[in-house]
């Protein structure tokens, strides 16, 4: 467990390194806020239409597909770590698991989830 205590110590250092540059810049920079500086940047034009645009459903489908395969990869990690000491049938079982997920990928592909509309 002391390994993770060291990681915790390192996170403190990482956060210090994250906060320090903006903090330093805040101390050193001029502060002259101005109505025109705060306008939304749209290449020089006035902003047009609602800002928080509609969320394309395609992104949601990619995220769903990612979720399935990420869980699969996470479940494969313990198998990969123990691989060197496993007998051959365990390898065949893992290959069957992968094949079931390949079928899933083919289904997602054919249904058109992976095309960008």
């Amino acid at each position, binding site marked *: 467990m002391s390994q993770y205590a060291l990681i915790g110590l*390192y996170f403190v*250092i990482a956060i210090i390194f*994250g906060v320090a540059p903006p903090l330093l810049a805040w101390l050193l920079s001029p502060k002259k806020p101005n109505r025109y500086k*705060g306008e939304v940047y749209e290449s020089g034009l006035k902003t047009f239409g609602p800002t928080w645009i509609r969320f*394309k459903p395609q992104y949601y489908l990619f995220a769903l597909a990612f979720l399935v395969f990420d869980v699969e990869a996470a479940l494969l990690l313990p198998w990969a770590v123990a691989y060197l000491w496993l007998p051959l049938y365990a390898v065949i079982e893992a290959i069957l698991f992968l094949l079931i997920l390949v079928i899933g990928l083919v289904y997602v592909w054919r249904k058109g989830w992976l095309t960008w509309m």
Partner: protein
Amino acid sequence: MNVLQFVANLFVNVGAWMGEVLHGWGLSPLWTAIVVKFLAGLVVAGGPLAAVLFLIWYARKVIGRIQDRMGPTNDGTAAGPFALLQAVADAIKMLTKEFIFPHGRDKVVFLIAPVLVVAVAVAIWAVIPFGPPDAGMQFVDLNIGVFYVVALASLTFFSMLMAGWSSHNKYANLGAFRAVSMIVSYEIPQMLALLVPVMLAGTMGMQGLINAQEVPFIVMAPIPALIYFLAMTAEVGRLPFEQAEADAEIVAGYFIEYSGMLFGAFYLAEFINNLSASFVFSVLFLGGWRGPWVEQAPILGLVWLSLKAFLVFSVLTFFWGAMPRLRIDHILGFSWKFLTPLALVMLMVTALVDKIVQIVGERGPSPSVSPWTRAGWLFLANAIVALVTAWVLYQVEKRQRAQREARRFAVVR
């Protein structure tokens, strides 16, 4: 011990000396250990920052030369010999720029995003093994080292979403969505390709991975190495997968509304991510700190690893200078329809071939298989898969060309 012996095992000796000094000042052993580790952490976190200053100059020079121009030079401005201090000048400039906050932004999230992205980029370096174990050259040797790196790399896309959404700007929003969908799509081939070295080494810990690489894994598993390299290029947002920061298209994408050091934080984090991705690739596939004379002088491990990582970083820089940006649907199609199936196939093939080689080897004259035999068979398996993939791609291309020709001649009626 003389100077050479002191330097050969530098970090252990410096740490011991510092521990003695602190103990002499009256600190208890526990606090001495904590303070020494804290200083070591500062060095580990500060090293990449210092390296990045040099690498920004290197990248700009290389890209300049690729584009038939000089890159930063020292004519007219004082930026050091050959403009080596250009990055320092840029840093000073960014530190003194005004923060321009857009109206209607999400105040808290807007500020958290750059802090998070730098903190995560720095946090990855805790597990990078710069030298052999017991030489004080790795902050912590987690036994889930590789998994820790992947988990932290996924946190960068949180900060992308936070930056894009809280900026109250259509372009930032679009950029953030595209960047996130790209990063998320390339996580899968990256993790699947990562499973192959983990499988061949039997551990996720960084030192264990290097230990198992008498033959570097790039020889034993060249296709997973290639898949990992491409996925890693997409994860760090390097051209040709630069949708996150498409310069000419959506004008800096999700960090449009950031100015001064907040933008500098994203820029810095991108370079640090590039460097840590290069280091992780070197550990996973190029043999890490292995090289001649490392047993006698562990500090040489740092030298070898840095050289390998510098080589990988150079390749990434050549990509930046020489490649065009791909369209988002091409990028996503490439990941889901090519890299993911290929990675799955490689995982199955490597598992099967390695296990069969191991079983056959155990029944043979000597109980264990030499790494070179294993490497040879695995390389052969990779070569066969590469040939089959090339043939499949050729068939697909033929069919697509036939479809295009049919459509062209159909219109002429």
